[in-house]
Structures are given as structure tokens and as C-alpha cells.
């Protein structure tokens, strides 16, 4: 019987075979994968799993088994048990917008923009940022997919983001997600 849910994170240098090794161990531990998201940043592998595990399973037990059985990859594991009912599909509480910035690379760009989001209760659903350095704006891009609360003052939010972008020497655009859907997707 599967009675518990765990969130497991995996970090390490990317190479072939990591997912095969990790999922084999999870299977041996009696876990059923419910959702997984994996990405590679430069040459670094990262992966999150949400799994349903056996009633006797523990986070420490899972991490121990994963470490013991995948030593050749030098991976870093973390696991946490989540209570029944606390994990489920994310509720989208607002209007979906895409915020994009370009500008010369410098420290504090992500923090500078996201603190405006936080102030207006804007939730970041996806963030991709590439900073290749230098002054070419095309080499330094942040793309945020965000949910703007329905009751947020959109005019004020735009003003605050534009002001912050100017302070950070960034070009910013704030567009409803539907325009990207309309122009890029057939259905």
C-alpha cells in the first residue's frame, strides 16, 4: 500500500545515465513517480520528483538508498515528506503575464525585479534567465511567466516594474500570455 508522499531533489554534474540510475532506485524502494521536472543549467543537472512511497518509507531512508546505489554520479540528494492533501495541482490565482527583460549584465537583476513582484503579490510560475555577461542586451535575458492577482492594480504594477527596470538599465516588456499563445500555437 502506498501511504506517503515525498519530494526529492537531485543535483549533480550532468552525464548520461543519471535518471536511469535514480529512477531504478526509487522503483526498488517501492516508490511511484507522480511528477518529475528535470533541467540542465550549463553542465549542471537538476531534477525534482514527487513520489508516492510505502508507509514505512522515510526521507532519510530514501536519501540513503539513493546515495548508496548511485556513487558513480556524485549526486546530491534531498528528500522531504509532504502531508496528504498538501500536494496537488498548483492553483493559478490570477492573470497570466510574461515579463521579459534585456540589458547589460550586473549583479542583483533577478532580485531587483522579483522584489517588485513580491510587493504586488505577483507569483512567479516559471523563470528562465541567461546572463552571458557583457553589455549586449541580447546576451542577458530574463523571462518570467507570472500570475498577477486579479485584484492587483495593473497600472501601478507596470509603473513600478518600468521604474525598477530603468534603475537597473533594463529594457522591460510586460505582456499578457495570450499574445504568445495566439502567435505561436495553432491550437
Amino acid at each position, binding site marked *: 500500500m502506498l501511504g506517503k508522499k515525498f519530494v526529492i531533489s537531485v543535483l549533480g554534474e550532468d552525464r548520461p545515465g543519471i535518471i536511469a540510475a535514480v529512477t531504478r532506485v526509487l522503483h526498488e524502494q517501492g516508490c511511484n513517480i507522480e511528477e518529475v521536472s528535470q533541467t540542465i543549467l550549463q553542465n549542471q543537472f537538476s531534477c525534482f520528483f514527487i513520489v508516492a512511497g510505502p508507509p514505512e518509507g522515510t526521507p532519510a531512508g530514501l536519501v540513503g538508498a539513493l546515495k548508496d546505489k548511485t556513487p558513480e554520479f556524485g549526486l546530491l540528494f534531498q528528500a522531504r515528506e509532504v502531508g496528504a492533501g498538501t500536494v496537488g495541482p498548483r492553483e493559478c490565482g490570477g492573470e497570466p503575464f510574461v515579463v521579459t527583460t534585456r540589458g547589460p549584465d550586473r549583479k542583483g537583476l533577478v532580485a531587483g525585479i522579483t522584489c517588485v513582484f513580491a510587493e504586488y503579490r505577483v507569483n512567479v510560475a*516559471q523563470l528562465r534567465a541567461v546572463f552571458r555577461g557583457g553589455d549586449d542586451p541580447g546576451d542577458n535575458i530574463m*523571462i518570467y511567466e507570472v500570475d498577477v492577482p486579479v485584484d492587483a492594480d*495593473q497600472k501601478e504594477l507596470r509603473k513600478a516594474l518600468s521604474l525598477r527596470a530603468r534603475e537597473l538599465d533594463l529594457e522591460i516588456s*510586460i505582456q499578457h500570455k495570450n*499574445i504568445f499563445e*495566439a*502567435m505561436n500555437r495553432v491550437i
Partner: protein
Amino acid sequence: MFTHGEILSVLEMLRSEHLDLRTVTLGINLLDCASDDLGRFRERIYDRITSTARNLVAVCDQVGEKYGIPVVNKRISVSPIAVVAAPFGPEEMVAIAGTLDRAARDINVDFLGGFSALVEKGTARGDRALIDALPEALASTERVCASVNVATTRAGINMDAVLLMGRQIKAASGLTADRDGIGCAKLGVFANIPEDVPFMAGAYLGVGERDEVINVGVSGPGVVKKAIDRLLKDDPDADLGRITELIKRTAYKVTRAGELIGREVAEVLGIPFGVVDLSLAPTPNVGDSVGEIFQSLGLRGIGVPGTTAALAMLNDAVKKGGAFASSHVGGLSGAFIPVSEDLNISRSVENGCLSLEKLEAMTSVCSVGLDMVAVPGDTTAETLAAIIADEMAIGVINRKTTAARLIPVPGKKAGERASFGGLLGESVIMQVNNAAGDTPFIRRGGLIPAPIHSLTN
């Protein structure tokens, strides 16, 4: 989740390729404002226009901001005034044009179209009054646009009206001589005019339309040009099949953006959505030109041999992409080649690539016609009418819309410059064959009958 490429390609279109929504045009039916009391009529049309459109500009700006795509022009089209104001004479028609102008100014739209008459088979009293009023109405107003449909494939060409229009164009030019004849820039003479055009000067609300409707005109010559440039940079040997496929896909994107914004504007205003007009509409800015596309395709300039084939290919690809993107396509839908409004096209005239005759040939494969063509000030009314008649014949025989927006520039000769300002641009005055000569053919008048292929029932 969108890919980097999906997001960045949209941003690039906005940042450096002049992607915008060229116009949102609110059609307003004025038929039930009819009255034989001039004061009451003017009051009714003013109230109808200003109350229906009071939020148009604000809503367009708000929706444009939401999607990050500006709505450049907000416009009004109304029922043909020659029908709505049929009881009135020319002087009253001029006063009505003044009322329309005031309404347009008060709601801050840049143009109002519909000072129009439909005379393809004959000229009724209201039509004649409106046509007689045209020179004064165009000279005394700033934002009113006029159109006269003188031909259809089903009716033939009303040659009496064609000659009359030649004379009125000449007169309108004379009344605005201090501004290079700009009055004529707000007047189009049409064959097969559609009832739902959002673009000026031909916008009017057809009598078969509902009370109110939102029609939009997309843009995108800069987007198409840059897409072709990118393809040819990656693959210099790309053939025309690949290029047309690319144009088609690009037109799809531009159309989808236009329809999304147009529908939302319509929804917020509580007005039904009508059509997307798929025209590639240029402006006098570098990078926003239909003419530049021809250079990207490998022609020395628009007008050299090969231009008509390239234009036919471009126009067809734009329509195919747009038709896939939207089920509600209308208006003119094709590539515009307005000479003074497109910096590259006006330069082609200047450097000898483009002649009036070649321009006319090109209009047989694209929308809309001889558009914003500056001609010598001494061109006679008969020669103007003859140019119009040729253009109408192309429309009638090919079952398509064609138009002539000719501007005889007072006191100036071929090769000199005419400047109209803003979006209307500037151009070298084109050479006209037989400009000041006699043309008895045009004076014969009557109706050129409808072509045999009009008998389709």
C-alpha cells in the same frame, strides 16, 4: 510554458520590426439618424458617433498595453453619407462633413470614413450632392475621409461618375493648393469597394452591416522583410517555395495578434467583432515598408522587371497565412503599395525604377490600386478620369477591389517633390503620359457594361 524562441521572436517583431495593429475601426450605422431637417440630422449623427465611440481610444490603448502591441490608429467608419443624407444639397453636405470632423476630433480618432457614395450603376440625387460637395468638404475638414465607388464587376463602370471624379479631384487639389493638394489624399475612387474596410480613405460601413462593428487592420511589412532576411542569411540559396512558406507563416502570426486584440477591444466595448483586414500596410518609416521586401527578395527596387511576379507571390502568401489564422477575414486584404506613404516606393519613383504604368500593372495582382500617387498639377481632369477608368477596369475584369487615390499637385511638375506630412508621407511627382492632352473617349460618358463573367447565376 513557452520556449525562448517563441517569446523572443514576438519581442523582436515589436522592438525592431514595427509590429503593431495598424488600425481598429469602429463601424457605426447612421441610417436611423436620417432626417430632412439639417440641424436635427447633424445633432443626431454627432450624438450617435460620440456616444458610441466615446471609449474607443481609451480601450484600444488599454488592450494594446495589456498585450504589448500598440494600436496605432483608432478610426470610425459610418454609413455612406450620400444615402443617410440623401435629402440634402451640396452646401448642406459640406456642413455635415464639418459635423463629422468635429465628432472625430472630440473623440480623438485620427480619421472618420464614410463621406461616401455608391454610384456604380447610376448617380442618385444624394450621391450627386455629396460628389459636388467633395472639394469643399475635403478642404474644410481635417479628419473626414471620402470614397466613391464608381464600378463593380456586376454593374460595370459608370463613366459619367468617373469623369465627374476626375473633375472633383482637380477641384479638391485646387482648394488645398497651399498644402500640395492634400485634400485629394483623403479621397479614394473605387471599384468593388468592400463594406467592411478598416483602412482609410476607403473605410465606410456598408448598408448590409449591423448597428456597430469592430474591424481591424493588421500591419507587418517590416516583420515579413526581416523574416525573409533571416532566412536568406541562414540559407542564401533558399528558393521561392521556401520564401512563400515563410511569408505565409509570418502573416499567420501577425493576423493572430491582430484578431486577438481586436476581439478583446470589441468585447470590452460590448460591440460585435467583424473582420481582420490582412493588408500589409506600410508607413513612411525605414523598416516598415512594402518596397523593402522586394529588395530583400532580390530585385534592385520595386518597379523593375520581376516586380509584378514578386508582388503576386507576396500577396498570395499573405492571404493564405491570414486565412488560416482567422475565419473572419475581410476588407482589402493584400499588400498596399501607396507611393508617398512608403519611403522605399517613393524612392523607387525618384530613382527611375517605378513608373505609373508599372504601378498600374502591379495593381492587377495586389490590393488596392494607384494609391497616394502624386501627379503633375497640370494633369487635366480628363486625364485623371482616364487613369481612374483604367484602374477601375482592372478591378472590374479581375473581380477585385481597385482604387485610385491621385493627387495632382498644384504648380508642380513631374520630378518635383510633394509633401503631405505624417503618415501620408512625401513623394516625387510621377510622370503622366498625356497629362495635359485631350481624351474624347472619357467625355463620351455612359456605362461600360458589366463583363460577361458577371453573369454567374
